[in-house]
């Protein structure tokens, strides 16, 4: 049978387009990427249990549904704008184009801080989890920071090597994680506390309770990583459909998974006991529950997957942070050295090393200071990082609105105005509540220095970034012009004086 395109086809098939299409990503590939970056088991075993322990809130399952819905609406405008953004994977690029370049620099610095907090926070929890496994298998106890440094060395090595943690490996691990969450949740619901399944934690009435801002921040934390899907808009099969479809699917799946797992936990121990149980067992809670009903072997599989999930999360956040520094280095907003790649591996070498040094300093500081790795490093780091990402998403949503207000052509009213407006209003409300209840997110009193220290630090960093942007506008117009363009900043249209100096295309003769 002749190929349909060769027989009687008017439009000649493009060999280039066909060849490149073979490399392009479809919806499942992008969904896997987004969900791997979100590392669901880390969220379920780590974030949800500690959120119950620290906030004591009963509306956690609903918070995930609510945040998922807001993020899905946010994604409408975000993905629409990503087609017009040179560095489509980074919030600050949107903010540069939508709210001005100085705001973009401020956002970039906030983002660097927030992702850093999320990344280094994971060193705290991995120490705890690995210790649990080592105790089970070898009946010895090692300090958490020893394990943290082993994990740190692995992340550092992979970061400089630019080793592709094989997509298939990540996909298999992700499927295993989802399976573990599903099985553990099903068993919890099948063995409810007091022999009756309670729907208390799904009751909408709880969401308006005191401290709702706290659980919304933690809800956002569960989805962090979804924003990177737009980095593939240039490589997607259908730029207009693949990335948005993948984002909705991923956000929907994650919201369902988190809400179900959080609800199932409350069913297993009873809503009235969940906070106390979570405080007592911390991240071990779901594994202890699984062991009761499924045996130690299954619980151990869960522990191992939790460990690999944490490693994957660390590598993902290490790469996100290193790439942020790399783009800013390429734009020369940060020192150009950060934009250097390793000759042999093509990895963002210097940026990766800087991130590695930061990790070492934090682990050392916590080990020397004797701070609690689980609550004070992992949970506080996660909560503070989650707040930063929430503030960035809120600013990005406003930027989308601002961008399309000036360039409305080519997008429907829904995508350029209605959805971004709704998302911005909702996100501003969430951010306001988060700031209002930030003491509850951290589980500290309202007089604690971190209660205002974290929001104030973000404000200071943002203001400093805006200031630096304004300095660049005055002193380095070329650099200023390329803010938010990432790797493409070298291809900017040359400034006027460069055009004058550049020989006209025909001026110097090319040798034969």
């Amino acid at each position, binding site marked *: 049978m002749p190929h349909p395109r060769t027989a009687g086809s008017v439009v000649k098939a493009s060999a280039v387009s066909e060849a490149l299409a073979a490399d392009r990503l479809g919806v499942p590939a992008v969904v896997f990427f987004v969900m791997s970056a979100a590392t669901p088991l880390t969220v379920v075993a780590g974030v949800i249990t500690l959120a119950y322990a620290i906030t004591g809130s009963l509306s956690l399952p609903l918070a995930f549904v609510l945040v998922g819905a807001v993020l899905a609406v946010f994604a409408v405008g975000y993905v629409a704008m990503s087609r017009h953004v040179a560095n489509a994977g980074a919030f600050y690029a949107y903010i540069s184009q939508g709210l001005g370049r100085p705001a973009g620099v401020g956002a970039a610095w906030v983002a660097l801080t927030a992702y850093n907090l999320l990344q280094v926070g994971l060193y705290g929890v991995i120490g705890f989890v690995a210790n649990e496994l080592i105790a089970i298998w070898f009946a010895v106890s090692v300090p958490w920071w020893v394990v943290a440094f082993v994990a740190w060395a692995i992340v550092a090595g992979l970061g400089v090597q630019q080793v592709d943690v094989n997509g298939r490996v990540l996909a298999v691990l992700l499927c295993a994680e989802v399976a573990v969450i599903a099985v553990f949740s099903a068993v919890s619901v099948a063995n409810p506390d007091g022999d009756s399944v309670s729907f208390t934690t799904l009751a909408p009435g709880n969401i308006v309770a005191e401290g709702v801002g706290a659980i919304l921040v933690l809800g956002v934390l569960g989805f962090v990583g979804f924003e990177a899907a737009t980095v593939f808009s240039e490589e997607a099969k259908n730029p207009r459909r693949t990335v948005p479809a993948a984002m909705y699917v991923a956000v929907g799946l994650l919201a369902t998974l988190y809400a179900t797992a959080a609800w199932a936990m409350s069913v297993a121990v009873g809503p009235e006991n969940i906070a106390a149980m979570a405080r007592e067992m911390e991240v071990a809670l779901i594994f202890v529950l699984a062991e009761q009903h499924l045996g130690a072997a299954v619980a151990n599989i869960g522990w191992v997957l939790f460990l690999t999930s944490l490693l994957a999360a660390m590598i993902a956040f290490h790469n996100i942070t290193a790439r942020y520094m790399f783009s800013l280095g390429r734009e020369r907003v940060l020192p150009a050295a950060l934009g250097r790649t390793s000759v042999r591996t*093509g990895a963002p070498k210097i940026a990766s090393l800087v991130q590695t040094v930061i990790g070492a300093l934090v682990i050392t500081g916590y080990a020397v200071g004797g701070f609690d790795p689980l609550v004070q490093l992992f949970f506080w780091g996660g909560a503070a990082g989650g707040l930063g990402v929430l503030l960035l998403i809120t600013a990005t949503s406003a930027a989308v609105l601002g961008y399309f207000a000036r360039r409305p052509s080519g997008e429907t009213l829904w995508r350029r105005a209605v959805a971004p407006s709704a998302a911005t209003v909702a996100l501003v409300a969430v951010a306001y509540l988060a700031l209002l209840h930030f003491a509850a997110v951290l589980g500290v009193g309202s007089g604690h220095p971190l209660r205002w220290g974290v929001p104030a630090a973000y404000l200071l960093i943002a203001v400093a970034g805006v200031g630096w942007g304004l300095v660049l506008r005055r002193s380095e117009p070329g650099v200023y012009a390329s803010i938010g363009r990432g790797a493409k900043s070298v291809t900017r249209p040359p400034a006027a004086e460069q055009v004058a100096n550049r020989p006209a295309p025909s001026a110097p003769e090319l040798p034969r």
Partner: protein
Amino acid sequence: MLLGDEFWLIAHQEHSGRPRLSTRVLGLGLAGALLGELVFCRSVTVVRGQVHVVSHAPPPDELAHWVLGQVTAEATAHTLRTWLVFLSRNAHELVAQRMWHAGKVQRETSRRVLKQVITYLPADAGQAAWAIARLSNSLRRQAPMDQADAFLAGLALATGLDQVMLDAAGRGPHQYLSHVVGGLVAPLHEIVVHTQAAVGDAVLSQRA
């Protein structure tokens, strides 16, 4: 001078034939060099990131002819970026084959687990080493460079090979390199910066 061959020599170790660059970056650099050959043959030009055919006269080199054939065969003009990505997919094999036919490299076949691996070794290690040393000398002495050498130096900068070429060279030669790249004719300059952007974007969209 065949720019693709020269860049291939710069990008590989002269004795072992091992690439100095990662596969993706090496492919992009070679793709830039192949498009540069067409610019030097006056077959194509680049205007604001788009590749346009200016002459259908067959270039003397067979591979350049094939690349030009690919460009002319397309019904619509593609961006320089698209061509870089398209050609980068098998530029390494294409250039190595051409060099093998010309006796510039030797082919070695070795068996690894489950598959055969073909590696190419420079036939004359001294000549191969000269490819990078010549550019390095010119840059270090800040000697005048013709468009072909300036273009190769630009591709080295775009792919990160300048770190090898100007190892421990200090500030002056690096600044001179930027100056040399700034003096490239517009189409060649565009190829260099778009290669550099593609290399950077490869970092940002790494499918980990």
